[in-house]
């Protein structure tokens, strides 16, 4: 068990199957503090499943995940407490349509962190200002464009002051003209030192921001290197095929 202080998440032999389908076949890796990890892989290879295992939206069949040294796969761990450290941003935003933007941001801190509503509102407004949406605070999600929604979703995650944020194809449900505004927010976040795990097809983002790129194939990590090496000098045959298709 690696427990050096700069490791945020330690993943050990993670396996996951749905019925007879083995999706993840033993994944072992460390995610360091402040690292921006980009995960690549063909459709259906298990990228989302991997991400969802990290905050236990899916229960792994085998293996261990240590978050800040705590084994979150242990039955005794209170997963709801651990999840507060590791937020997720979804492809389809999943904002709460019956709550205003501000409420979307503040409900979790208020209810779960017992933050005072005033403080939560202040914090939320600061975050919204950061992504340029402070004037939308009191509107409802349906009044926002896709890009705006995703920026709000990122703010919602940040509001909980997590240690890691997971992104599952955060731009692939967006119209092309909106992709940029979301990526900008993510880039800024990466620069601010946030630990991020991103599943994305935005190679530009990966090249510019990622500190490490992992390629998943057949349920295992088939390549794990710097973006430079991965894009310019891919060793794995499948990765080469994959890159030739999407670049």
């Amino acid at each position, binding site marked *: 068990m690696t427990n050096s202080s700069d490791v945020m998440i330690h993943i050990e032999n993670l396996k996951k199957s749905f019925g007879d389908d083995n999706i993840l076949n033993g994944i072992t890796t460390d995610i360091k503090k402040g690292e921006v990890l980009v995960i690549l892989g063909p459709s259906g290879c298990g990228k989302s499943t991997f991400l969802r295992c990290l905050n236990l939206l899916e229960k792994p069949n085998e293996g261990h995940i240590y978050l800040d040294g705590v084994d979150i796969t242990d039955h005794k761990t209170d997963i709801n407490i651990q*999840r507060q450290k590791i937020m*997720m941003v*979804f492809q389809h935003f999943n904002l709460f349509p019956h709550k205003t933007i501000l409420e979307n941001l503040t409900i*979790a801190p208020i209810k779960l962190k017992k933050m005072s509503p005033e403080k939560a509102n202040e914090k939320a407004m600061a975050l919204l200002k950061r992504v340029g949406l402070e004037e939308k605070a009191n509107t409802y999600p349906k009044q926002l464009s896709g890009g705006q929604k995703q920026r709000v979703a990122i703010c919602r995650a940040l509001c*909980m002051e997590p240690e890691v944020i997971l992104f599952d194809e955060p731009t692939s449900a967006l119209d092309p003209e909106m992709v940029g505004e979301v990526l900008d927010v993510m880039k800024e976040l990466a620069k601010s030192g946030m630990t991020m795990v991103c599943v994305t097809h935005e190679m530009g983002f990966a090249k510019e921001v990622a500190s490490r790129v992992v390629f998943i194939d057949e349920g295992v990590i088939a390549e794990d290197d710097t973006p430079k090496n991965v894009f310019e000098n891919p060793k794995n045959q499948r990765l080469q095929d994959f890159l030739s298709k999407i670049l």
Partner: protein
Amino acid sequence: MLRKSSNGVRIKAFAVVLMVTTILLTFSACQWDSSAQTKSDVHGAEDLKSATIGVQLGTTGDIYASDYKKDGAIIVEYNKGADAIQALKKSKVDCVVIDEQPAKNFVKQNADLSILDEAFAVEEYAICFAKSNTELRDKVNSALAQIKDNGTLDSIIDSYISGKDNSTYQYISQSNTVPTNGTLTVATNASFEPYEYMENGKICGIDIDVSQAIADILGMELKVTDMEFDSIITAVSSGKADMGVSGITITDERKKNIEFSTPYTAAKQVIIVRNGTSDNNAFLSVDKFKANFLDEGRWQYLAQGLLTTLQITLLAVIMGIVLGFLIAIGRVSCEKTGKYKVLNWILKTYLTIIRGTPTMIQLLIIYYVIFASSSIDKVLVAVIAFGLNSSAYIAEIVRSGIESISEGQFEAGRSLGFTYAQTMRHFILPQAIKNVLPALGNELIVLLKETSISGYIGIMDLTRGGDYIRSRTYDAFLPLIVVALIYLAIVSILSALLGKLERRLKNDDK
């Protein structure tokens, strides 16, 4: 269940108006070909031989009318006098033989019925004395004449016969002086209500009050002795009693042994017939309206019934919603987690049972089986029955509402660190409720209509209230139609509100 017409409230207001017309037309059309209102062929007791005679089961009228069976008369026995009258009005029988007192009431309320002048059977009751005691007889006769003239006799009889329950008249000894002319001993047999009977250990009845009135006039003290009926005459003859007052019918045989006073009352059987005047076209008359709703404050049955109906509906729907939500949440949670298989089975079975059996049966089982031994209020029983019933339907409404919320909402909640229950409460249920509000409103309307079966276990709900008035006024039309109109009005109002709500929710979602 109730799809809404797009034109909404205005159409409905119109509908209510048109409805009355439609029903009236239908009704008139139906009445038209029925030969209900022909004059009876019975004009006297002689005609009974070939008539179909309605009687109340087991009454004197029944016994007397049965004598005509051998002559070819057909006797139809009804449980209630009112039913016999109803049958007479509908020409199902040619006449009704019944006691004079109720007959008068019936005829008062039905202009198309008359009592034949010729009394069918008369029994006159008189006071008896020893053959030798003509002195007392004459005194009593003059006393009788006096109380007949001043109305005392009628008041006494009325208080026992017509207004027994809420009698306002009670004969109270009126002589202020101490009786000075000695004792008047009266023999009676206290088992012939209302003439003489025991109540709270005291002998009372018409005959006793009459005797008291006579004693007052004669200035004597009354002493009543109870004995076997067939001993009374002996007692009077032998002088053990001064007179016998015990509903004694004057017969020739008896006259040989004793003296009779003038009769003080007569129990009469009469024949009611249709008189040929039709009261058909009067079925919306002011009189009818008055009889059905204003007389004796009958509208209160409807008001009270409406309150009960609304009470049952509201409480039941609240119970249904609470239970329904619990069941739905249980079902969804069981299916989602795959755990608690037994709970899931129980819930599923519950739903299958409730939705696979009639509400009526559920009501009966809950009333007669589950709450058989407790003396729980019937309205509460109904609330529980309808609450359980609607809980099953509401559970399925809510379940589909919850399932219509995307899985992503769940994941967003959980990934923020909320527990399953918190996610349900803060994110899933508020959205689900909004989605199912129209369906819940519909369920309220369905339930309101369904509570109309409460009368089966004797609850005075709106339906039963109308039914009750019907059984008093022998008029089915007005009470039922008014009840129907009340239901229609409530349903229309609820539908209109529901439509408004739906439109608002739709606009909200835009």
